[in-house]
């Protein structure tokens, strides 16, 4: 187990280096740079060139990447080219906010998604199964942007029950006004629970049709014990893997949700970095999301190992 974790961590480092290099390369070959963004349309070519020189944008990409990567290893995320603020504190604050959103969304989605998956598998092809499956398919098919706007229209504009924007003052905790969390958490949870329901349903159906479940039935075990102890435990292995991946996906996928709800997370940070062509900010943000993806995947794999002894061999 320890060897496995160490191997996966080493592999994750390799992936992060690759992600950082690709991101740096892509950002630098795309048209437009921070000098033109800062100076605007009115700037003369001489002004743009002068600013490019001042910001060191005229130096080779590889040289700039090497310096940036060395800084990252030492915990220095650099300084925003647009705002002149150090990126590290901003990024960690945003990441913490996004983790709150993703974790709360998962906390809601996991039990409900698994429960619905089990119910639909146990009552396969019943009216209940079809109704739940159809609903979650529709929810899963809807882009988060649409789900978010629909919730705002219903709960904020029409019924005036919940705030539509997560407006947080500097230094203020997200918990200062927890009502602002409900709608963005709901959007995260809806998408995730729909997916988990589908995955759990499929793996539960496979488990319920397996030989060990048939044996348990013949042994006269109760239906509850068969479902919970035998089928669900095995069905959870693919579900757990999806939860791990889903956590990373949730963090990366928060871009849309955070923009719609003005939520001060890493997704909004990425959007602002892109708009400003703030290369250090964009680089650091993408790397953090990639790391979250990798860590989520690793946790899922370790969880699968813990649940299924056969995988350890």
């Amino acid at each position: 187990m320890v060897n496995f974790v160490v191997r996966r961590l080493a592999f994750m480092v390799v992936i992060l280096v690759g992600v950082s290099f690709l991101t740096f390369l892509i950002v630098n070959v795309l048209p437009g740079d921070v000098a033109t963004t800062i100076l605007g349309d009115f700037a003369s070519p001489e002004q743009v060139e002068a600013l490019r020189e001042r910001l060191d944008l005229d130096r080779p990409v590889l040289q700039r990447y090497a310096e940036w990567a060395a800084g990252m290893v030492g915990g220095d995320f650099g300084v925003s080219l647009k705002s002149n603020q150090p990126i590290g504190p901003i990024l960690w604050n945003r990441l913490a906010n996004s983790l709150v959103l993703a974790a709360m969304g998962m906390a809601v989605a996991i039990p409900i998604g698994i429960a619905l998956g089990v119910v639909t598998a146990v009552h396969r092809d019943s009216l209940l199964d079809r109704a739940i499956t159809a609903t979650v398919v529709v929810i899963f098919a809807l882009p988060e942007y649409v789900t978010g706007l629909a919730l705002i229209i219903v709960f904020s504009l029409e019924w005036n029950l919940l705030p539509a924007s997560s407006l947080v003052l500097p230094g203020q905790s997200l918990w200062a006004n927890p009502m602002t969390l409900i709608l963005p958490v709901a959007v995260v949870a809806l998408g995730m629970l729909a997916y988990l329901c589908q995955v759990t349903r499929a793996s539960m159906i496979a488990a319920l049709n397996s030989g060990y479940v048939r044996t348990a039935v013949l042994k006269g075990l109760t239906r509850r014990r068969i479902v919970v102890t035998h089928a669900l435990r095995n069905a959870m292995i693919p579900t757990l893997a999806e939860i791990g991946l889903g956590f990373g996906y949730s963090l990366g996928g928060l871009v849309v949700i955070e923009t719609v709800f003005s939520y001060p997370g890493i997704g909004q940070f990425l959007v602002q970095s892109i708009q400003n062509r703030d290369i250090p900010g964009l680089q650091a943000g993408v790397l953090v999301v990639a790391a979250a993806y990798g860590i989520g995947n690793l946790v899922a794999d370790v969880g699968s190992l813990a649940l299924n002894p056969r995988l350890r061999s």
Partner: protein
Amino acid sequence: MNRRHSILDAINRRRFLEATFAAGVSAAAGATLLGATRARAQAARKGGDLRLAFPNAIDSLDPHKAGSVAGQTLSGALFDNLTAFGPDNVSVVPRLAVSWRPEAGGQEWVLDLRQGVKFHDGSDFTSADVVATIAKSLDKARAGYASGIFGPVVEARPEGTHTVRVVLSQPFADFPVSCAGRWSRIMPATGIDAQAETPNGTGPFKLGSHEQGTSTRIVRNEAYWDGERPHLDSISFFQIAESVSQQAAIRGGAVDVINQIGSETYLALQNIPGVVPYSQPSGRYQVGYTLAHLDPFKDWRVRLAFKHLIDRKALLASALLGQGVVGNDVQLPPGHPLLVDLPVHDQDFAKARSLLAEAGVGSLALDIWTTSERPPSPKMALAIKEGAAAVGIDITVRDIPFTEYRANVPRKMPLFTSQWSDTPTLFELFYLVHHTKGAANYSTVEIAPGTDARIEAIIAEIDAARRKQLVGELLPIIQERSDRIIPYFQNFFAVSTDRVKGFNPIELFDVRDIWMEA
């Protein structure tokens, strides 16, 4: 106040009224303007926290690097200008400069500065700060958006602790107006390049706390030199990008003012109790550029032909939902006191064909570059494409991301869309965009022989009547030969709750005047 002030005051009040009525201000806006006037007449209540939202975040605390309107509004609260726009949003009144006078025929300006003013860190405001700010604006590598913002300045030098002499490369009548602009905030000489991290102005509010890209809180500067203002205790800045979220935020009371809303948000917020939407005529316009130094627009007749391709009224109705006024290819909106009678540039395919034939242009295939991140300019691009098809020109609309657009389109492509904010000085209106040395003259050539000399004469002329005559002689040339199709002027939209008083709904409003009912 000097004579020039009084002349400008008279002219600009007229312009304001003419613009208001010529543009057909909506009932809501009309009521708003009257309401704003009445609000100023009421006794302002001290105190309160204003929650102010914009569609974009504050991008920089450095006044010279603030590109977003949110950042520029913030810099207007933290910093002072030498002059400020008066209640009509056009004429200027004293601020850090208490008086100013032209010398050497307008080629030099002498400013007497306000005494006893302190920066937020407690240091004294002196002429050295003005000199340092103007010097920074002349340094292309450090100036950011403020490059050349004070006009054709050669140097600024102190004459004592509270007098500054500004020397220009030529007479420049608009110098006091250029001092009131969004990038003309005065910064302290000490630490002038550190304003992005530790902004230190003389303005009515001090930075309370700031989280980059999230929110900002400013608090009243108790030592502010203007004893009467500001009225508010504090202002909190937020970003709300989505229209539906903006509607929910203002209706639900999460914010008090949202500036720069879209026309669809304005229309959706009409007739909502407790909510006051504003649709205000403005000098902001969008442009179809036909660069005069690139083929096929080197011949002015081709440029003029393109000006006759668009049905402007139909475009105004479809693109702006009627919330604006038709443009006539000059950057002065209807009602501007310097505007003269000009032929109307209507859609006229026969004339366009004739002009193209005279220029020897047969069939053409062109790209028009635009970006959906500057709505509704893609609709203008489509209107040009449709009109061009009627005269045998095949145009492909290229709608690209803004960052790519900004880097690769202006100055480089012959045909593209763009947009311009309201520009108060004749220097910005004419010199910057039409003079061959103008920083924003994308064509880099004279649109007609002698244009540079005409523009230089206008910006140098201090006599108002003579100036108007010179502008009247230049405008027909610009309308006919310039590289800019101006099909419409856009209204400006904002919304507030009815508790907010003293709010002047323009792109960059003055937070000093705002107060809130209990």
